């Protein structure tokens, strides 16, 4: 059917062709072609379903620079007698690509490469000759150049998908959407208004290193009209213009009027600048990114909040310019923002060891942002691992120690009541471990801890929980529930007040600098507090205060307290502690305000010395801290007790003759 159709069409063309008037200027060869190709409805359907018109307007062709040429000049091998059978053409672009090399027959490549920009296009092969120059109706380039508008001239190439690859391997699209320009505030501008280094005759080539340099250079175009002076009228915008390029916010060609933005929803208004890679300079030279990702907010716990609910001093009309010393100064002040709603959390945080460390200038210590991030503020998660991982990021050693614990096992098994770090240490009021009462934290989950211990930990004949308390008060949970090295910790306290004597109070009492305390205690500087040194220190403290040493049993290395063993592996043997042979180390602990206590290793013999009686009044562990001299006294008394009867009997035996004589004398 298709073949019959084509044959019929050819015959028709012939008949009609005689009726079509043809100009004399075109060659006979052309005339014969136009008999068919002069019919305006002649078209061909391609495999890509595109329709390609096969109509050639003879009049227009005649006026073109190629008007006097035979069709076969460009379409070699085709004439009326030898018209190829219907060709397979997959698509328009393929056809153009296939046909374009024919142009090179007359226009040698080296001639086309001469104008640098044209050469670049030819080399790249992104667009083909006919796309710019047309296929049949190409005017004389000279005439065209003179006639077309600047914009039309530029767009003749820049309407296409042309691009430029920079040395940084970044690619810049050079395609310009003319419609976008028309809709923009610069809609009436010709290209050359901005790009004044270009003209129909001049097309400079710039070699930018990367996009950043390109954007920065482009700024110069904008500032020709939008001068520094003008920009200074809006200080926020002016500050911004010093850290970001115009293009980043305003785009390339579709520059929108700034006033439109104010009608936007507030968050969108802020994000119209802050969604871009903009940054702020601190006084110390640090650069802080002030870019905000909308997705971060939308996925955060604060997704329903407007920007100004946190950033109260900002609005669509107000944008104060603030100055910060450093990023850490900025982050510390961010706490005030959180405090607007989370007063309770901030109050508790202010008591924490983290807040204290920050005050002392420890840059590593976290403020709100380090854990909660800027705009990503997460929801409170039930994922114990995720919340613990946050702490472990800094407290890696603790994380490692915790890994082997029964609690980690519970987390791994997905148990609902498994503890995270915050279960024991709290989330905001994280206190130094020596004052955090971590034993209470255990009891928060292990509620029946007293009665369960009382099942076996009691003294007959009455089962009293106070006996359990006596142990809880003087030994940490970890003392029995871990299998690590243990220690006797002697804390310097004011016995009358029942409170620790802190480092600064020691310094004050001894009238020395806090740094000199170590030397005052460890006088021979051997790194260990000898018995005599300890009692000397205590005696000088006691002359000024009610100093005494409170004692407790705990793990030697505080971090080991994380290694809690399963119940069946915990220590139940009383003689583990109640034993003079228990190899516990002894440490002297002096508390510090809001910080970890200072610890000194003490000669373990000290707790067994008679001097311990007046100096460690309220701590006594049967066996472990027994006063050794009493053992010697015991043996002397025993010997004395035995010696008396032996001596007396001996004397009675020796004096037996006297008594005999006396009796006989009677």
């Amino acid at each position, binding site marked *: 059917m298709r073949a019959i159709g084509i044959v019929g069409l050819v015959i028709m063309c012939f008949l009609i062709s005689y009726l079509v008037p043809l100009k004399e200027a075109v060659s006979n060869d052309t005339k014969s072609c136009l008999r068919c190709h002069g019919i305006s409805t002649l078209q061909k359907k391609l495999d890509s379903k595109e329709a390609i018109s096969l109509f050639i307007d003879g009049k227009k062709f005649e006026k073109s620079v190629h008007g006097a040429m035979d069709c076969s000049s460009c379409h070699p091998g085709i004439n009326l007698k030898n018209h190829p059978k219907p060709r397979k053409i997959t698509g328009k672009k393929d056809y153009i690509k296939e046909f374009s090399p024919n142009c090179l027959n007359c226009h040698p490549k080296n001639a086309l490469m001469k104008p640098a920009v044209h050469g670049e296009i030819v080399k790249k092969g992104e667009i083909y000759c006919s796309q710019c120059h047309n296929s049949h109706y190409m005017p004389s380039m000279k005439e065209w150049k003179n006639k077309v508008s600047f914009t039309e001239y530029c767009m003749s190439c820049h309407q296409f998908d042309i691009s430029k690859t920079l040395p940084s391997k970044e690619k810049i699209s050079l395609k310009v959407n003319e419609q976008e320009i028309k809709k923009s505030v610069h809609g009436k501008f010709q290209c050359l208004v901005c790009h004044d280094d270009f003209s129909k005759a001049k097309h400079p080539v710039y070699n930018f290193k990367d996009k950043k340099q390109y954007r920065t250079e482009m700024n110069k175009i904008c500032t020709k009209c939008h001068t520094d002076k003008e920009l200074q009228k809006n200080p926020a915008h002016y500050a911004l213009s010093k850290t970001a390029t115009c293009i980043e916010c305003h785009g390339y060609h579709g520059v929108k009027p700034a006033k439109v933005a104010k009608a936007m929803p507030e968050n969108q208004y802020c994000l119209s600048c802050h969604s871009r890679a903009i940054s702020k300079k601190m006084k110390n030279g640090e650069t802080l990114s002030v870019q905000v990702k909308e997705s971060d907010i939308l996925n955060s716990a604060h997704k329903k909040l407007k920007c100004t609910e946190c950033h109260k001093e900002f609005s669509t009309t107000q944008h104060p310019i603030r100055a910060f010393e450093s990023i850490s100064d900025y982050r510390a002040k961010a706490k005030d923002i959180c405090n607007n709603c989370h007063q309770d959390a901030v109050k508790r945080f202010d008591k924490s060891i983290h807040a204290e460390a920050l005050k002392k200038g420890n840059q590593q210590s976290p403020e709100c942002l380090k854990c909660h991030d800027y705009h990503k503020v997460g929801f409170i998660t039930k994922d114990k691992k995720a919340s613990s991982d946050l702490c472990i990021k800094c407290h890696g050693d603790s994380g490692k120690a915790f890994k082997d614990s029964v609690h980690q096992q519970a987390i791994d098994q997905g148990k609902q009541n498994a503890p995270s770090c915050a279960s024991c240490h709290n989330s905001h009021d994280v206190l130094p471990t020596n004052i955090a009462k971590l034993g209470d934290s255990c009891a928060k989950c292990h509620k029946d801890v007293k009665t369960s211990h009382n099942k076996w930990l009691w*003294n*007959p*004949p009455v089962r*009293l929980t*106070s*006996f359990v*308390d*006596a142990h809880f*008060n003087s030994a940490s949970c970890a003392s029995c529930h871990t299998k690590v090295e243990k220690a006797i910790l002697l804390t310097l306290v004011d016995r009358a007040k029942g409170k620790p004597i802190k480092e600064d109070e020691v310094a004050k009492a001894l009238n020395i600098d806090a740094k000199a305390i170590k030397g005052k205690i460890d006088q021979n500087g051997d790194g260990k507090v000898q018995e005599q040194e300890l009692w000397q220190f205590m005696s000088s403290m006691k002359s000024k205060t009610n100093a005494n040493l409170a004692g407790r049993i705990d793990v030697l290395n505080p971090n080991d307290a994380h290694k809690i063993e399963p119940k069946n592996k915990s220590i139940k043997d*009383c*003689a583990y502690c*109640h*034993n*003079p*042979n228990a190899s516990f180390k002894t440490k002297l602990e002096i508390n510090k305000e809001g910080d970890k206590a200072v610890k000194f290793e003490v000669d373990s013999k000290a707790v067994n010395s008679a001097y*311990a*009686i007046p100096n*460690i*009044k*309220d*701590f*006594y562990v*049967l*066996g472990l801290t*027994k*006063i050794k001299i*009493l*053992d010697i*006294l*015991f043996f002397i*008394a*025993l010997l*004395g*007790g*035995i010696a*008396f*009867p032996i001596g*007396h009997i001996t*004397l*009675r035996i*020796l*004096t037996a003759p*006297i*008594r005999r004589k*006396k*009796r006989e004398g009677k």
Partner: protein
Amino acid sequence: MKKVYLHPLPIRIWHWINAIGFVILILTGAQIRFVDSMRLMSFETAVDIHSWLGFILLANYFIWLLYYLFTGKLFKIYIPPFWKPIEFIKRSIRQAKYYGYGIMVGDKNPHHPTPESKFNPMQQISYLMIMALLIPIQIITGLILWDPQLFASLAKLFGGIQIVSLIHTGLWIFFSAFIIVHFYLATLGHTPMAHIKAMFTGYEEEHEEH
């Protein structure tokens, strides 16, 4: 031979419970203290026995106290005649001389026990100290050590658990020596078994003057 009824039944019961209790308390006390070198029993067993016996002897103390309070003999037997101090001192010296010298040369014991005056001046002063002071103190310090939390305020009164423990251990040392000497002195009757027998029967035999 004259027989004097010196030890009424409640006192004999009290004495022997106390005697066995004391020995076992001293031994378990030693086991608790020397857990590293003594292997009589485990620490836990020693503590259990020590605690049980402590309470038994506490109750036992009241047998003694209530008996002598109700019979009204406490004052007569245990309180030295402080209104005649010179005479008491003289008698004490005489008694000491007897044990140190007279007994060797065959002198008579200057003290003749009667139900109203069981003890010689040296016994009187030591038993008063032991019964009225040392045993109550040992019981109280023992109670504190039995549950330091329950008796925390009492411990504070003593000046801290360390001092409580010091007193309890000190008295343990004293009683250990005392028990040995006490046993020896018990053999110094007219026959070595005389006083011991009396503590079972209640009757002390006394040689009459010929």
